[in-house]
């Protein structure tokens, strides 16, 4: 009996030590990975001041770069998945987008910080516009939306639209549309078979004029969309950048070049 018990103990300790070593190895592996990524980002930031030729950006320079791209996104989604948001840097990127000629811009974060601070964003963008575009900044007016609903309705004639979104918008919009449809069915105003993906798309859009995003740029280390407009992103190209803090213009334009190089087959 004793011997049996001893055997059993032996096996279990062996298993235990094995799994202990495995665990240590995995932790080590993750630590190595983390250090590698950290060093990479350090090198990256150290390099930045050297790229002085990209420091000066004028409207002409931005627009000539845009002309060399063979396609531009109509709607760009900027996902800021970092805890610490710098509104100046975000505004900077938004102004670049505007100047290269992107008409629809969505800003997304999970906590709803953008939505809460929409005046701040508005002011930051205006300030940055003046910095980049100088006197011509008045020509580049924009509409600001919060979850698809317009906030600052001062200007009538403009072609740029900025939308602020949060976790509350994506899935919840679909649920809202579903509820609305079910109510209409209950009142016999619509039939069940009226619904198809295109009808649902129209229901979801409602009054807002934003087309489906063509390009998503995700800032931060998390490799997930974390709830960004699920229904609208089926054909969006998803590109990543490690951080929006002090983002370099060169990185921004290289992402647009990558987007221009993406070919879509639409199932064919």
């Amino acid at each position, binding site marked *: 009996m004793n011997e049996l018990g001893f055997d059993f103990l032996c096996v279990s300790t062996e298993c235990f030590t*094995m*799994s202990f070593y*495995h*665990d240590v*190895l*995995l932790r080590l*592996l*993750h630590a190595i*990975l*983390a250090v590698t990524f950290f060093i990479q980002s350090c090198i990256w930031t150290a390099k930045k001041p050297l790229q002085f030729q990209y420091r000066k950006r004028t409207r002409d320079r931005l627009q000539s770069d845009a002309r060399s791209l063979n396609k531009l996104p109509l709607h760009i989604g900027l996902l800021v998945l970092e805890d610490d948001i710098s509104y100046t840097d975000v505004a900077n990127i938004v102004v670049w987008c505007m100047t290269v000629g992107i008409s629809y811009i969505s800003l997304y974060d*999970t906590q709803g910080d953008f939505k809460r601070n929409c005046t701040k964003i508005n002011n930051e963008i205006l300030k940055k516009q003046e910095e980049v575009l100088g006197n011509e900044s008045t020509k580049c007016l924009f509409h600001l939306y919060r979850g698809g609903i317009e906030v600052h309705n001062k200007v009538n004639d403009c072609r740029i639209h900025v939308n602020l979104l949060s*976790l*509350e918008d*994506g*899935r*919840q919009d*679909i*649920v809202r*549309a*579903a*509820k609305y*449809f*079910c*109510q209409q*069915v*209950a009142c016999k105003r619509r039939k*069940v*078979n009226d*619904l*198809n*993906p295109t*009808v*649902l*798309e129209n229901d979801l859009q409602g009054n807002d004029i934003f087309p489906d995003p063509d390009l998503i740029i995700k800032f931060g*280390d*998390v*490799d*997930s*969309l*974390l*709830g*960004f407009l*699920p*229904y609208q*992103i*089926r*054909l*969006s*190209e*998803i*590109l990543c950048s490690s951080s929006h803090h002090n983002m370099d213009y060169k990185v921004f334009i290289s992402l647009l070049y990558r987007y221009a190089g*993406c070919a*879509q087959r*639409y*199932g*064919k």
Partner: protein
Amino acid sequence: MRISIYARLLHCDVSEYCRFLVHLRPKTSCFLFGWYHRHFDCRMSWFPEDEHRSTNRFTKFCANVLKCGAIPKHVAFIMDGNRRFARKSSLERQEGHIKGFEKLTETLEWCLDLGITEVTVYAFSIENFKRSKEEVSGLMELARQKFEKLLEEKKMIQKYGVCIRVLGDIDLLPNDVKRAVAEAVNFSKHNNRAILNVCFAYTSRHEISNAIKEMALGVEEGFLRPSDVSEELLEKCLYTGKSPNPELLIRTSGEVRLSDFLLWQTTFSVLSFVKVLWPEFSVWHLFAAVLHYQRNYEQIQKTKQQNQETVEERQRESDHQCVLEDYKNCSDLESKIQLYAKQREQRIQTFLNHLDEKHSKYLDSILGV
């Protein structure tokens, strides 16, 4: 067309087969030989025989190391790049698709070894019907064969306890494929050790609008109230209603979009875009993706938790609103809300049971039971 001729050929006896081969040009006979070989090779089966299972000790060791961390329960794959692979290695297009299937069976094995118990694969999109007629019929033939092969391996299905589900609008498929699919799904529906979801004639937008339709029908038939519609209920009405959402999505071939695949379900999944073409996908790519998942695990869990809390909060608010609408100015609101929540849950449960029943009746109707 061509494929079906070969398929018929494979059923005739070997001497006849050889006599036939003599009349063919070398290139074609090479292709035929390869095909014949693969068809009867055990690799072409859904289940590798034990002696063929990868016994590489180093891979096993690495899998054990990985298993000390968080392992996703459910992984989704977009198997992209079969045609590009065929072009690259100058194979027939159909050969590329066959290679793709072989890779799938291999990948399922790796997943099981890692402890990933559910896998969802994007086999055929509704948009893919736009491809050339020849390619579509080739793919359908491949699917029919594979599902029929699966039914020949019933013993193995039971041994591994595999449940196969086909997600998508089965009505769009040709009748013979539909029947084979229904039979496989029906046969394996009670298994639960490993689950394979095959998205066939699927797009996510279709799935979501179909789920809303089901709920609207529930409202029309009196199972549900419009106010019962919620994130939780919608999720249960999707084709994947019985599964947890995939925690990891892997897309091969370097494309960086979702292409209308599990849009709702992958909102909180780790996305892993791999550069290689699907037939070149190896166990190391899978390990790298799992490692990547582990690096992202905590932050995503946080957002998921936050979302879960908002969902619950929203549900409480909705219940409150409904009770207020039902009885204006009443006392003892709290207990009424609790009662209402209980009734709502009951309504939803009855509706979901009804939905299940409807689904299995539909399968039976295809099988002609």
